[in-house]
């Protein structure tokens, strides 16, 4: 069964180059199996990250 994530936040940053990313970390719970996260454009799991820069 597919489980999804949906994250968003707004931050004020100092001027300059910044790198934005979505990362995954495995959680060591007893009995947990591996997971397949995201995928390419042929996968229904494909993730995306959008960054909007808004001038105040």
């Amino acid at each position, binding site marked *: *069964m*597919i*489980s*999804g*994530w*949906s*994250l*968003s*936040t*707004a*931050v*004020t*940053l*100092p*001027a*300059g*180059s*910044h*790198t*934005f*990313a*979505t*990362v*995954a*970390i*495995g*959680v*060591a*719970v007893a*009995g*947990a*199996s*591996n*997971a*397949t*996260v*995201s*995928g*390419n*454009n042929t*996968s*229904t*799991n*494909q*993730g*995306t*990250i*959008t*960054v*909007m*820069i*808004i*001038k*105040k």
Partner: protein
Amino acid sequence: MNGSLALREAVLVLTNADNNNVAIAGYSFFRITGPTTSFAITGIANGFDGKVITLYNATVFSLTIKNLNPSSASANQIKTLTGSDLIFAAANSSVALQYSLSETKWIVIAQQNLAAQTVTFNQSANSVFGTAALTVLPSTPQTVIPGLTQTIDVPAGSVAYISSVGALVTTAAIATGFSVVDIFLTIDGSITANGGYQRVYAMLPIQLVLLRV
């Protein structure tokens, strides 16, 4: 005063490019001629307390009034009051100035036919997409999901709005198998303080059937 005010016209011959420390005679209304391409005024000589002048650009070439430009002597410089140069349209235009004794500068008090300004908002929006699946073990440390990263030059005084969506599945082979993965947003490798974290549980569809029973 009972009567009319008349400021007699004088011709002011300028040249192409910058005109520094422009000498003006004892008049207050000047008709600019001479340039055959865009030109500029960086300063005007002969200012004195309260003197008012109107410059009428009779050419069809763009006039620029340069703000506090050091090509002219300090006492001859012009304050446009915008902090920037005033660029007029490539057509007839006019600008009125008055000399401030306390600031020893010419002050722009009126203008007509400024060039259309190009406003750069420095705003943008960009999406990137997953390029491959990532296998996450229970012991997998912080790993960027393939394709879900982008580097942007953020201008001063801006807010960055970041959003991410996607999905994962468990690779468990048994009916009661499951996976747990933490998904984060990061900026320059650091996890965001708020709003950028979800713990996602994935299980096999058979477990939904078991839950319904």
